[in-house]
């Protein structure tokens, strides 16, 4: 099928399947999925600039579907998402300027996140097993104990005004800490060209103390705003083939719903344990970028 905007010949079935896979991952983990979409689009000959811009457009659509589904489950903190979007966009703009400096640091950060999440989620799951086993219900699945909880509570107690109350997440925390978390995520997003959900989702859980299910839903809501901004700026530069994004999104729409619904069958620590490979993929992308000079 010819896509006239980018002059690319791509099979629509291929795009639907790629969208479907990314949709499942995005709905379940709260990530954009650029680490799959970018290489998948480039593999069929789409120009690098078009791959980035088109992927962002598709992420907007996929996140809208996933957020609507997560919202039905009460997994989206709109206030937190809006505040984080500001920090992410600012970070993304600066991140694009700091590519060299960030690259080395980011590899260490990604590997550390992955190792830490493996340690924490396994420890939490082991300590839960030692406790009295309660029958699994939807409510118990959303209970989200963490072996890192004491550190998170200390961060929440930092009294740096203005403090912001987040009733949906059940916490009160300094606005500056939220902006800092979003800004750091944005820096990596600006550097990698994707959503960098694999740094923001764990940060929301471990630094802000948001329950995992809410972190997934809220991160997706935040991605709608930041990816919309990215789509608009890339479209102005002529980097978006919206027809490709629309076709990809037909697969992603159903995948995102499956991913979002699946989170209801897993506890927070299990979702975090399954998340472990994603930051490692992020690290691999940075290594590839450094070695070849091309973003994935």
């Amino acid at each position, binding site marked *: 099928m010819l896509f006239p905007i980018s002059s690319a010949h791509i099979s629509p079935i291929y795009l639907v399947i790629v969208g479907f896979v990314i949709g499942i991952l995005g709905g379940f983990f709260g990530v954009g999925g650029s680490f799959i979409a970018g290489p998948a689009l480039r593999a069929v000959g789409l120009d690098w600039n078009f791959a980035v811009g088109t992927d962002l457009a598709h992420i907007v*659509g996929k996140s809208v579907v996933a957020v609507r589904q997560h919202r039905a489950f009460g997994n989206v903190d709109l206030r937190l998402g809006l505040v984080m979007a500001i920090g992410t966009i600012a970070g993304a703009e600066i991140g694009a300027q700091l590519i060299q400096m960030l690259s080395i640091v980011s590899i260490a950060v990604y590997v550390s996140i992955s190792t830490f999440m493996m340690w924490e989620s396994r420890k939490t799951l082991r300590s839960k097993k030692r406790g009295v086993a309660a029958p699994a219900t939807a409510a118990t699945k959303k209970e989200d104990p963490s072996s890192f909880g004491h550190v998170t509570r200390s961060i929440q107690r930092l009294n740096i005004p203005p403090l912001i109350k987040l009733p949906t997440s059940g916490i009160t925390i300094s606005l500056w800490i939220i902006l800092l978390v979003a800004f750091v995520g944005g820096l990596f997003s600006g550097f990698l060209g994707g959503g960098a959900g694999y740094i923001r989702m764990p940060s929301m859980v471990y630094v802000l103390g948001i329950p995992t299910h809410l972190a997934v839903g809220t991160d997706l809501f935040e991605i709608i705003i930041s990816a919309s901004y990215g789509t608009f700026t890339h479209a102005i530069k*002529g980097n978006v083939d919206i*027809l490709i994004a629309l076709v990809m999104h037909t697969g992603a729409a159903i995948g995102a719903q499956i991913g979002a619904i699946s989170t209801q069958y897993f506890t927070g620590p299990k979702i975090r344990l399954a998340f472990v490979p994603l930051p490692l993929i992020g690290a691999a992308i940075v290594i590839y970028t450094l070695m070849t000079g091309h973003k994935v």
Partner: protein
Amino acid sequence: MKKETAKTLRAFAIELVVYAALVVGYFFLVLHFLGEGLHQLEVRHRYTYAGVALLLIIGQAVILQNVTTLLLRLIRGRAG
């Protein structure tokens, strides 16, 4: 419990088939008509194209989700 899971999976499989048929129709009808117009817009009016692109992807997201939810409700209703 197993019966419920089998019912859900069967409903989902039917939904996928109906959804796939709808999507194929969508490719050939809507994208065929939209393609050239969007291409011209992208060449001549970039800012308008950027806005239209965003509206299209968000609009499609809302419509597709409503379609899949409706399909699932209809199929489950019939199966039940």
